[in-house]
């Protein structure tokens, strides 16, 4: 039980995530991908006569159950099988982030950026609202996210997914190295 309560190493978590690919395929030809669920929500709630959202979303409703599962899984993992503590990141990352203005290192997310009290500050707005917007817009434009392209796409050897994944990383590097230090100072 103690081993489960500790954070899991990459060589346990990674292969388990990889096994989701064949599991979903064998459960009736479902392809792993999370961002599609965001489109489903749009199609179900606010289709607004846009052709991109006019399809039979009920047929694909399994991925709404899938993301509901992720929420419940997140709850179980955090409240039942974890011992709270800080994330054991590289001290150099901590030092760099401190220099750039991050103060709270006590949890999975820095509370001095991601909290309701920060939401109405400029910095909070950029990190909480604008960041999410870029994630939603970008993944749909790219046709998938880390699960759909990087894991499912590359697993089935589709080169457009490899291109997309490289672009995800490029965008991330550009943001982290050249833009984020300024955003943290807002």
């Amino acid at each position, binding site marked *: 039980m103690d081993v*489960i309560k500790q*954070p899991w190493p*990459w*060589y*346990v978590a*990674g292969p388990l*995530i*990889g096994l*989701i690919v064949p599991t979903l*395929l064998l459960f*009736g030809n479902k392809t792993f991908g*999370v*961002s599609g669920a*965001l*489109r489903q*929500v*749009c199609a179900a709630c*606010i289709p607004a006569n*846009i052709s991109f959202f006019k399809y039979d979303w009920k047929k694909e409703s399994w991925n709404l159950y*899938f*993301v509901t599962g*992720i*929420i419940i*899984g*997140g709850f179980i*993992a*955090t409240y039942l099988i974890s011992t709270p503590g800080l994330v054991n*990141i590289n001290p*150099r*990352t*901590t030092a760099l*982030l401190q220099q750039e203005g991050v103060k709270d290192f006590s949890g999975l*997310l820095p509370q001095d950026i*991601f*909290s309701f009290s920060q939401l109405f500050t400029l910095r909070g707005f950029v990190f*909480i609202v604008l960041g*999410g917007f870029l994630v*939603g*817009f*970008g993944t*749909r*434009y*790219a*046709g998938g*996210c*880390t699960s759909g392209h*990087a894991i499912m*796409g*590359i*697993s089935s050897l589709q080169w*457009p997914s490899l*291109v*997309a994944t490289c*672009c*995800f990383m490029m*965008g*991330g590097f550009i*943001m982290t*190295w050249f833009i*984020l230090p300024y955003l943290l100072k807002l």
Partner: protein
Amino acid sequence: MVGLLFGIILVKSEAISWFRIQEMFRFQSFHMYGIIGSAIFVGIISVQIIKRFKVKTLYNELVVIPVKTFHWGNVYGGLIFGLGWAITGACPGPLFAEIGSGFFVILVTLLSAIAGTWLYGFMKEKLPH
């Protein structure tokens, strides 16, 4: 059920942590690369096994994987998502897991991501693909 396990793995591996994503983009840890890399490795082997041995689904159907055709959205959208990924420290899967972990403010991020998806659908025809 599979989603539930995915949520647990995401939390237990700290892949939902903003700090882990920062570490990854600064090349200061192998952790996230290990997770994604080994997931892809296991995924490739599984898909190859399914194809070679023509493994059928539980409902006795052939496994069909939809072909992804390249369009420039893979590049432009990919870059935009990358920018957002480094800000929020989360891709869509972890957003859901963070909400389950009690970070309710991320509900706002999720709604914003849904708004972003909607705006893409709204202006799809006008974007270069």
